[in-house]
């Protein structure tokens, strides 16, 4: 798929803060990654780990209260800041679809109106007929039957899966180079999820767009991504190829995520969520942010701010854990949580 590796997106030191009444929320800290044409980049992490915020920042869709620093370049053009080029690229070269298809479409306009709008804002001179034709094609591409008559339907006449397809059609109608899909399947039931993922893959095959796929679900990632960012507490804590993440895990948090995946269990058959809860983004724990929940935590973790993102073996595999080599050396890193989990049970 990624035959030509033209660099599309280059994100460096992306940091987003929200000043609130309770203090400054550090929603994302110092995120860097690159994306090439044809790539599928998976982003995983628990709820609140800053997955959406980091991608909304790239799209320039954060509320005006957000303070964004760092850089995000699309084909060399800076996207961030008041002079950023994101305005003209949004919806055209960069497209995004969201988690909840039930609310992502405007209830008072027909799907056709909203689809045509996406096309028209970037193609002012396009004749009406062509706009309609391309709208029909777009619906057809995502597998909506009777696309012509469906253009006149209102969103509430569509099922959830169909709405998400319509969203994908809307995002892809201008042939974007990058599609950011923010948990496109979370709100849908399982069979529909698979269909939507399949639709995404098909669309990517046809257009060759790069996709950033945000999800809770490592299973989804395993299916279609080539590279993965694991996020925790607003920062990237491990990144690498799918194989790196799944078979050469080098960060306890990733191991925990893998352990909580349904289907492939280390031992036994119970789903094991990582004990504890995500850190406060206002007052971060000192040292490693995963420290309070980490079974391998040592004193050094609390003092030394790890974060020093160091490469391991291969050039693309990096981890923020200071004991990464030990984790990497483990047979099955997922087992490290077993002890914690058991003590948890005993304490109950």
């Amino acid at each position, binding site marked *: 798929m990624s035959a030509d590796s033209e660099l599309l997106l280059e994100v460096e030191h992306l940091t987003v803060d929200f000043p609130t009444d309770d203090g400054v929320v550090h929603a994302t800290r110092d995120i860097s990654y690159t994306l090439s044409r044809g790539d599928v980049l998976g982003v995983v992490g628990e709820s609140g780990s800053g997955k959406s915020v980091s991608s909304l920042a790239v*799209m320039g*869709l954060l*509320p*005006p209260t957000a303070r964004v620093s760092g850089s995000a370049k699309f084909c060399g053009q800076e996207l961030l800041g*008041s002079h950023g080029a994101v*305005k*003209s*690229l*949004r*919806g*055209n070269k960069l*497209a*995004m679809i*969201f988690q*909840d298809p039930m*609310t*992502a*479409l*405007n*209830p*008072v306009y*027909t799907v056709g109106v*909203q689809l045509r*709008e*996406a096309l028209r*804002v*970037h193609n002012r001179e396009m004749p009406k007929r062509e706009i309609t034709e391309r709208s029909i094609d777009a619906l057809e591409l995502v597998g909506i039957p009777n696309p012509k008559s469906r253009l006149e339907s*209102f969103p*509430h*006449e569509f099922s959830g899966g169909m709405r998400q397809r319509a*969203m994908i059609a*809307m*995002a892809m109608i201008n042939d974007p180079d990058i599609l950011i899909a923010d948990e496109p399947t979370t709100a849908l039931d399982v069979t529909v999820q698979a269909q939507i993922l399949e639709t995404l893959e098909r669309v990517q095959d046809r257009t060759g767009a790069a996709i950033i796929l945000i999800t809770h679900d490592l299973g989804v990632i395993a299916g279609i991504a080539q590279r993965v960012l694991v996020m925790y507490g607003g920062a990237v804590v491990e990144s690498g190829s799918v194989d790196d993440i799944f078979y050469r895990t080098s960060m306890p948090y990733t191991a925990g995520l893998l352990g909580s995946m349904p289907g492939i269990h280390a031992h036994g058959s119970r789903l094991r969520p990582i004990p504890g809860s995500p850190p406060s983004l206002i007052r971060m724990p000192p040292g490693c942010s995963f420290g309070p929940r980490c079974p391998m935590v040592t004193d050094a973790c609390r003092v030394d701010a790890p974060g020093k993102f160091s490469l391991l073996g291969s050039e693309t595999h990096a981890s923020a854990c200071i004991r990464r080599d030990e984790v990497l050396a483990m047979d099955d890193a997922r087992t490290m949580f077993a002890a914690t989990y058991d003590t948890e049970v005993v304490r109950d």
Partner: protein
Amino acid sequence: MLRLIIRRMLVAIPMLLVCSVLVFVLVANAGDPLEALRGRPNSQQAIAQRTATLHLNKPIFERYWLWFSKMLHGDFGIDNKGLRIGPQLWRAMGTTLQIVLLSTILAVCLGIAVGVISAVRQYSFFDYSATFVSFLFYAMPVFWFAVLLKVFGAIEFNNWLENPGIGTVGFLLIGLLGAGFTSMLFGFKRTVSKRRRLIAGIAGFAGTVLVCLLVDRFLADRTYFRWIGTVNTTDPRFAHQGFWPRLGDHLGHLLLPVTTLAVISYAGYSRFTRASMLETLSADYVRTARAKGVSERAVIFKHAFRTALIPIVTVVALDFGAIFGGAIITETVFSIQGMGKLFREALQKDIDPNKAMAYLIVTAINVVVFNLIADIIYAKLDPRIRHE
């Protein structure tokens, strides 16, 4: 659409029937129509006569039936003075409807405009001042405001019209308003820099002051008619003049009562519009529109505003009863011969049941009709209802 209207009517008509029964019982028990007569000497004959016309010696449901069957033919009976109520009622209703409609339109337009700007520029100076003004209006007793308006808005303004001119303070104030307006107009988008806004403001100030100077020169040595009326809806001096002077006079008289009524509902509408806009502005589909690359202006008006309008219609509809209630007070302060006046006449020492009933039932019908219109608008705005 027609189906919807018919369905709503099918609900409204029985509701009006029940309403008329309840109101009839209410009025019948609210007082004795003969109270004042009884105290008067030699009133036997008058008492007998009124008892006969009001069927006071018949049981209440028979009385209701007599009233109701006449009312269906548009006959509201006669009042305690022996005059037919019908003609009085229609004249009064015309006047009141004018005031109510004009003030509703004014309040809705102003409230929505201010609410939208407040929401788009949340926590700006405009937002804070508009919010404060709304709260202030919301806290004012209707007639207190009406009396103030009468003194400052009419009497002082009329005095000014007799000897017009713009003082230094006037120049400053109007100039500042102009500055605020232009800088807001140019600075509507968030991205416009502070400096550009400031320049727009200064230009606006200069422009407005210039216009004011011209107007001031024009006004000097002139004197105008005391245009704003505080009593009634017309001035007899205009009775034999042409259409335009009569219209002008009429508007001069409607200005204050309409403003009074509008200001009270304006406060509610602008607050509600702001809240509704804030909600839609942070809705997912607005984010979708932005992600598509739609311009900020189109995002605000085509996506956020269009959807925010839907609940506003409901609020306006719920408010009609209150506006008619407010009209009772406004009409009294400005001595207008409307429905409110009629109603107050009905509540003298001798309650005038026919008149009170006429007011209550006609007002209820008006409110129901307005609500029906609001329902239709609502369905037009919201496809989810339309397709139901």
